[in-house]
Structures are given as C-alpha cells and as structure tokens.
C-alpha cells in the first residue's frame, strides 16, 4: 500500500516536472533540447548528491543543516592542498574530500547518538563552526581559478559517454543508494528507526547508531560534493554554497520525504532536486525576476508538504463493518 502511495507520489512529481518543461517549451523550445536538459541535470547534480544524504538523515527523524558548510569546508581544504601541492593526484584529492566530509558527518552523528542533543541544534552549531574553521584556514581569502591546477579543475568537467563526470557522480550515487536503501539491512534500519523508534529498539536495532550512520553518509556525500563544487566553479571562499542546506531540505520535502521520519525514497529526493533545478534554470530564461524565483520555489515547498500531509494523514479507526470490507 505504502509502496503504491510513494510510487504514485513520485509519478505525480514526475508529471509535474514534465508539465513544467512543456510550459517552458511553448515559449522557449530550446530549453527542452537534450543538450540543455543535460546541462540542467549537471547543474542540479550537487543538489542531488546532497539531497540523497539529507533524505537518509530525515528518514531517521533527524535533520542535517551542516551539509553546505561541510561542503564549503571540505572544498576549501582540498583547494588549499591543491595550491600547496599541485602534484597531488585527483584520486587522492577525492579520498581526502570524502574522508574529511565523512569525519565531519561522524561528528554530527556522535553528538546526536552519544550526547542525545537534538539534531537541529547539533547541526546548526556545527554549521557555524565549519564556516568559522574555513575562515581560520583561509584567513578570509579566496582561492581563485588561476591558483588551482588544471587537472584539479578538469575532473568534474571531463566528459564520459557524452556526460560530464559531475553528472555521472550523481547518477552513480542515485544507483548505489537506491540499492543501499532497498536491499541492505542498514537501509531497512533507516526506515525502521524513523517509522517507529520504540519498535525498532525492541527488535534490537540501535536507534542512535543508525542515526549516526545516516549523518556519516550525509557527511561523506557533502565532502565529495565539496571537491566537485570548488573545482567546477574554480573558486573557494568562506561563503560558498551559503544557504544551500535549505535548498537541500526543500528538495527532500518536495520529493515526498516526511519530516516526521520513516517515509521517503531516493527516487523522491532525486525528483525533488530536479524540480528545483528546472525552476532555477528555467525562470531566468523566461525572464522572471529572482524575487519570483524564490516565491515559486517557496510555494512549491508548501504545496508539496500540503499534498504529502493529506496523503499521510492518519486514517481513523474503521468501525463500520461495511467500510472494512471496502478497504
């Protein structure tokens, strides 16, 4: 039942994106050209990567507000390493980025697990701390394009079968985490903990530890995205991706991930991110002011939450015998 419900929700969102693209196509047919859609996807890839991690965190009834700061800190660290040691190969940079991001995610997870601090408070704190550390490391200075090595910058743009590596990373993450969420015991534990933490405890699942792993995954993806972001835009400074965590949460919410935990899918997070990505890329094309872009994104969030709230509303007890048969 819940499966058909989420599927139908995803179909609905997919249809909404299709309608949106259709409307845009009536005025700017060029927008729906395959090459442009590929560009939109590539542009949305960082959002997709972070939304996957965020979706897992929200699934366990937590929230990770530190993802954008994690991205910025990891990005700055790898950029500075590249400036100091231009010879370090991209593979090592990737390991460092994922490793550092994972570590930062683990800090969030440990604070939530061991100290029992509400996740919103933990990640609000670490968000500020991470940004502060960037300032301390960089002295507030920018790392600019000309300081970075060519190979460092080339990686996310390198094309493979017609798509840039950045896009491929997002596609790979969607596949890997779909498998994790639907085919592993850890994935099942995420759903169980968010769906009913008490029941999960009684079946022998360690709730805090499961949440710790959710934050760890979120951190790892943020770290990976940190390198891709800095190298793609060829700049690193204190405020990159500032406020991006809200886009990430919004993508999850639009994608049908329940803030109350236990409900959501990788597919939903992907579609939620794409929906925001299409709006963000299309509105400037059809000459709508940035103010309206924000207002439309905001409305999309509220509409999505309202639709989901209706779908998730607790059914009353079935008292009438006739109604039971009908159900």
């Amino acid at each position, binding site marked *: 039942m819940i499966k058909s419900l989420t599927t139908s929700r995803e179909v609905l969102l997919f249809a909404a994106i299709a309608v949106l693209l259709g409307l845009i196509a009536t005025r700017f047919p060029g927008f729906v050209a395959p090459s442009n859609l590929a560009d939109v996807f590539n542009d949305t890839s960082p959002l997709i990567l972070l939304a996957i991690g965020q979706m897992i965190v929200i699934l366990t009834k937590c929230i990770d507000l530190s993802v954008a700061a994690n991205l910025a800190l990891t990005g700055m660290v790898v950029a500075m390493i590249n400036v100091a040691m231009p010879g370090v190969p991209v593979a090592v940079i990737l390991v460092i980025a994922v490793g550092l991001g994972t570590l930062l995610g683990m800090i969030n997870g440990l604070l939530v697990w061991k100290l029992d601090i509400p996740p919103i408070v933990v990640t609000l704190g670490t968000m500020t701390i991470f940004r502060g550390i960037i300032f301390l490391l960089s002295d507030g200075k920018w790392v600019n394009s000309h300081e970075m090595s060519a190979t460092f910058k080339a990686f996310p743009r390198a094309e493979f079968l017609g798509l840039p590596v950045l896009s491929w990373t997002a596609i790979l993450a969607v596949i890997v985490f779909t498998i994790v969420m*639907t085919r592993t015991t850890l994935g099942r534990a995420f759903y169980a903990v968010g769906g009913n933490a008490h029941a999960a405890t009684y079946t022998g699942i360690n709730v805090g530890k499961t949440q710790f792993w959710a934050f760890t995954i979120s951190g790892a993806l943020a770290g990976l995205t940190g390198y891709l972001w800095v190298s793609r835009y060829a700049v690193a400074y204190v405020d990159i991706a500032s406020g991006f965590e809200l886009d990430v949460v919004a993508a999850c919410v639009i994608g049908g991930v329940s803030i109350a935990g236990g409900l959501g899918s990788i597919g939903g997070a992907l579609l939620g991110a794409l929906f925001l990505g299409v709006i963000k890329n299309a509105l400037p094309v059809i000459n709508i002011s940035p103010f309206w872009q924000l207002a439309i994104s905001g409305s999309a969030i509220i509409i999505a939450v309202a639709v989901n709230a209706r779908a998730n509303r607790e059914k009353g007890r079935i008292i009438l015998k006739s109604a039971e048969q009908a159900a």
Partner: protein
Amino acid sequence: MLMHSQSQVPTAPEANTPPILSLDGITKTFPGVKALSEVALNLYPGQVTALVGENGAGKSTVVKILTGIYQPDGGAIRVDGHATQFPTARAASDAGITAIHQETVLFDDLSVAENIFIGHAPRGRFGLIDWAAMERRSNEILKSIGATIDPAQKLRDLGIASKHLVAIARALSIDARVVIMDEPTAALSHKEIQELYELVEKLKAQGKAILFISHKFDEIFHIADRYTVFRDGQFIGEGMIDQVNEGQLVKMMVGRDVDHIFPKRESHIGDEVLKVVGYDHPTEFAEISFDLKRGEILGFYGLVGAGRSEFMQSLFGITRPSKGVVRIDGRVRVIRSPADAVANGIVYVPEDRGKQGAITALPIFQNVTLPSLGKTSKNGFLRLAEEFKLAREYTERLDLRAASLDTNVGNLSGGNQQKVVIAKWLATQPRVIILDEPTKGIDIGSKAAVHEFMAELAAQGLAVIMVSSEIPEILGMSDRAIIMREGRIVAELDGDDLTPETLVRHAAGISQGATT
C-alpha cells in the same frame, strides 16, 4: 448481575441531602467493547465517595464522561437533580466538575499562578491578564488549602506532592463543586499522603463532593464516606463505607460470571529454561528472583505501577539492572541490549503496540523479518525471497488475513497488527516469550484467539511470561502466578491458592487476617 439497578438506586439511609451530581443508567460502548452498562454513581456534598473496581471495570471511562471527554450513549447526568450534558470539557468545568488525574496535567515551564489560572485568568483593562490579581488570588487559594508555595515559582521546581497541591488549587480556582481524584496517591510518599488526607478533609468541610478512585484499601477505608463498586462496566452496589469490610468489597469487585471460556490445556512442563536471581534496579524494582520452565505459562499480576513492565524491560535489555543474574538453560547470560536478548532466545511483545510494536509505515513482511534480518540477509544485503518465505510461514501460522504481505501494517485492524507483532517474534524462534498485557484494548473475539494461541505456544514447548492486570486472564491462563507490589515479588501462587481473592489481597497489600 445481582444488584443490577438503574433508576431505583438504593440510597443509603443517612443521605438526607440530595446528591450534587448523579449518573443514572449511563452506558458507553466502544467498537466491540461495552465499557459501561447502565451504571449509576452519586456524589454528595461534603462527602468522599470511593469508586472501587478492578482494571477494566470502567472507572476511567466514568471519569471521562464526568469531565466531558466522552459522551455517554445512554442514560442521564444530573446536576442538582437537573438533567444535563457535558458536550465539551469546558462544559463540565463550567458545571463545577474538575478532575485531578493520575498523571497531573500541568505545565512545567509556567509559574504556579499561571498553572492555577490557565484558561480563566483574571482580566484587567483591555482584556489583558491582570497579573497582580492572579498572584493575589493564587496566594489566597494556596493558603486556604494550607500550602506554602510561592505563586511566582516555576512548576518544574516543585516536588510531586506540591504539584498535586497546585492541581487542587487549580480545581478550587474554578469554584469546583465536584472534585475527582483519580489515584492521587500513586506517586506520593507516606508523609505526602497524610497531607493529602488533611486537604481532602478541608475540601469536605467546604461542602465539595469528592470522587476518590484508588486501588489501595487502607486509603479507601481511611478517607471515604461512601463506596460504589463497578465490575466489568456494571454497577454492582453502593453504600456507606462503615457498613462494609474489606472482604465484602473484594468479593463485590471480583465475584463474576464466567464471561469468557479460556482454552482448556494440559500443561506439559519441562526443564527449566530461564532463571532470574536477585534482579535489582535503583528505583524501579528489587530482589526479583524466579524460574521458568518449558511449556509453562507464568502470570505476573499486580496493580498498575507495581514494576512488572519495568522489570520485563530490564530482563529484555532495554534498561540495565544494578544487580542480578540471568541463566538460560543453566548458563549465565549477560543481556546488555534487546539484540542480546533476542540472540539468547528471549523476546518481548510490549504492551503499547502502537508505540512499541509495529512499524506502521512498513509493509507486513518487513515488520515480520525485522528482528530476523540476520537470518534473511547475507553480508548486510537483504534477500527478499527469503524474507517473503519467512514472513509467509509465520503469518500463515497465525492465520493472518491480508491482501498481500506488501500491505502496509498501518492499514490493518488492531487484531491483525497484533498478529504481525507476534509473528515477528515467533520468526526469531524464541525460547522465552514475554507478553505484556497481551489482550489489553482488544475485543472479546480477538482475546479468545490470543489466549488460544498462547496455549498453543506453551504446548509447543515455549516458556511464556504473561504480564496481565486482568484477574480472569491470570486465573484462566497461568500455570503459576507471581504477584508484584511496589517493585517486589510479594507472592507466588499456583493450584488452589490461585484465587481472585488471594490475587487482590496480595496485590493491594491487604493482610490475611482482615477477612470476613
């Protein structure tokens, strides 16, 4: 029922004043359960009426009807002889009825004065709250009940007894004429109970009618002027407290028709499976020792709050005991977490299924396999075919009817959700199964099914611990019963010793001498 009466309630001869509040022929039905069947209750000014009855007798339902939370399906509520209705909690409160609940409903982060006047704070100019008046009147009320509490204090900083006083002050602030006290002493120390008694005397002197609900007989005989007995939602009798003794009250409480046939079973009791020695917890229970054999159903009886569930949770590894040893098949086992307990063959079907049992957002098969994922997965990867096989095997054994194992548990009826939870535990192939209030809140038909199933489990050689507050269930199902009171085992009964009277006596702490 023997004294089943509606309108011609036998009023005691001393009652020369008419009751402030009376219930007449009140009936309340929930789906599948008749919670109250034409009950009567009379509350007189300046008198304390004790409402006595077992769990499930309908006491809480009456309180909810009196306070406007439930609407009766039939019968009349009369205030000063005039028929009335309480469609909302507000209406009951406007009629001067107030309840002080088991868990006091107050706001920890507001001041004492705010708690007393929340919802009806004195207003000054522009409709704003008149803080000075509120504090002054709080002071007056608190003084009138002899409480020395500063109205400006945060409620959080008060002890439980003082919180009760605030709740009572709140009751007085709305000019209550009827005060309902639902197990007010459950969380109080001996000294605090004495203070509560004094307060009740003060309220009596002010002409308030008091409904006093308690399981403790010493309290009832100390404080009450009258009694009313309910059993299984029926009115059994009422009268002046000085005209009965404990034995008679106990008889009225438990003497029942057999309304439910328990499965006949022949116990084949085997070797010892579980032995618990000296389980202690700093605050919840002490010196719990017992043993359990294959094929045995061991009942745990006691009043609510006797520490039974707390002990079971500790045995299951949810909380840690400070001391104690568990032996399974004679070997000492350390249980630090629910995962350890499950691995050692102990499973726990908790009381609150909604909260602790099923995960309603997940499909049936995922719920069933959740504690058995070790068996149905390989290197952390799930094998869905195995999961379906396991889920199908155990749901079929329980005769669970659902369209598909993919059905979300939230869409099942309460009885079927219960089956999913039991299937989940059976799939782990346990040695010991702990059932905490297994039939609480389910209809008679499902109850019989659960009982039959329990008998079947025991017949298959499982050792069953059944925590129950229902006397017929304990009598009908257990081979042996352990009775807990205030965190300790007070008796272990079997055979002919296992009677309703002995259960109630031990659970309520009535000495053996005080019989009829």
